[in-house]
């Protein structure tokens, strides 16, 4: 019977055992006795793992950047949505206020005209227009309730509009200056020739009864003459577009200055105004200051 070889001799098995014991005891001694912090080994491990650390850092940075971009994009989308909503709201508000703004602008211009014409003018809003129809006119808000009567002159900042034709309790009808049955006493600016303006429709009119000897040129301004006692002298009516001489008179075509189809507000002149009015040179009235309190008598 062969003897079993010893495990602790200088045999390969024994040498492995010694090496293993040295390994374990070396670790134990390192931990229990050694006071070396192990910086060198830590440096080696750091060197090996450095590329992977950088890779992981880059990957982490990429993820953070991507999520940040996604968050920014989401934020921008939300903001864009809100801005679009706000823009739509403002557009709707602007569309709602546009007629009011236009009316306010027209009212401002009417106010300027009111300052220029020192008469007791009354403003009126145009409700509807029946102009395209035969003998059509402009229907305005107000009538007998505001003390109006037929044949009151109606003007706009651009020029003469017409006169009141019929007055109902709360509404009135304007006979526009371009109506075939309308007549306004007018005067040409350069030649000072007078005549009667008769409507031709579609914003045009013709001056009748002008002396054929008069010299009238296209482009000349036409003003009211004041002879009809409806309009005072000097209000703009329109501009000459064509002059046609005949044996008896000079027929002068005129384009009316007031845009009759686009008016919103008009001013009504008083009945039978003076022949000529002068613009007021007085400054607008200012509110009076509060009166100073009287000092109490001291005894």
């Amino acid at each position, binding site marked *: 019977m062969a003897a079993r070889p010893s495990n602790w001799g200088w045999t390969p098995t024994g040498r492995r055992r010694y090496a*293993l014991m040295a390994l*374990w005891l070396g670790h134990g001694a390192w931990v229990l006795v*050694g006071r070396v912090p192990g910086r060198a080994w830590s440096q080696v491990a750091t060197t090996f793992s450095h590329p992977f650390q950088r890779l992981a850092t880059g990957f982490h940075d990429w993820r953070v950047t991507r999520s940040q971009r996604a968050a920014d994009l989401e934020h921008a989308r939300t903001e864009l949505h809100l801005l679009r909503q706000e823009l739509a709201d403002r557009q709707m508000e602007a569309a709602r206020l546009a007629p009011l703004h236009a009316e306010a602008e027209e009212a401002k211009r009417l106010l300027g005209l009111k300052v220029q014409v020192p008469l007791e003018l009354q403003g009126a809003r145009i409700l509807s227009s029946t102009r395209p129809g035969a003998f059509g006119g402009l229907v305005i808000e107000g009538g007998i309730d505001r003390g109006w009567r037929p044949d009151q002159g109606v003007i706009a900042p651009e020029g003469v509009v017409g006169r009141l034709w019929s007055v109902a309790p709360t509404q009135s009808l304007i006979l526009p200056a371009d109506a075939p049955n309308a007549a306004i006493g007018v005067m040409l600016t350069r030649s000072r020739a007078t005549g009667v303006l008769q409507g031709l429709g579609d914003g045009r009119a013709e001056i009748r009864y002008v002396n054929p000897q008069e010299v009238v040129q296209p482009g000349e301004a036409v003003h009211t003459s004041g002879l009809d006692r409806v309009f005072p002298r000097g209000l703009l009516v329109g501009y000459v577009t064509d002059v046609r001489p005949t044996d008896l008179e000079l027929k002068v075509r005129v384009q009316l200055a007031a845009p009759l189809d686009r008016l919103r507000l008009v001013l009504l002149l008083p009945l039978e105004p003076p022949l000529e009015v002068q613009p007021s040179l007085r400054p607008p009235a200012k509110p009076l200051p509060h009166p100073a309190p009287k000092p109490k008598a001291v005894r």
Partner: protein
Amino acid sequence: MALRKPPLSLQARVFVALLGVLAVLVTAPWPRLQLILHVLTVVALAPDPRNYLTTGLLASASGWALEGSLKLYPRLGGSPWAALTLALIAAFLAEHWPPDSRFRWMIRQLGLALGLFLLTEGMVFLAAGSLPSARPWLWVVLGWPLWAYLTWRDQPARS
């Protein structure tokens, strides 16, 4: 009846364990994954009853790779010593009481992992004077069913 996996050759086992050590080094930026790979290497890949010396070397290498890249402790050495000790215990258990089923293998792996945790805590305390955080070991336990299931093989008999 479950299919049994034949044991790896010694060279193949050393190669796989070396891959585990390399993986521990590579996964330094992700400490939880690194700890799981370290435990896997120490309790499942490195222990081989056919050669205790390679078992010890591979386990301690895994411990040094872990501690060296963690840079958490003022003095190193606790984790490698704990890994070396536990790997030798695991090899001894595999030699004398080889697990004959996957279930027993998994239970043993869990026990060895908990033992490694206790040894690491104690030996790091001896080396560095402070107890390391136990929270990363929770991930080892959570991942235990997976890594223990996958590493099951028949244990080789000692030559």
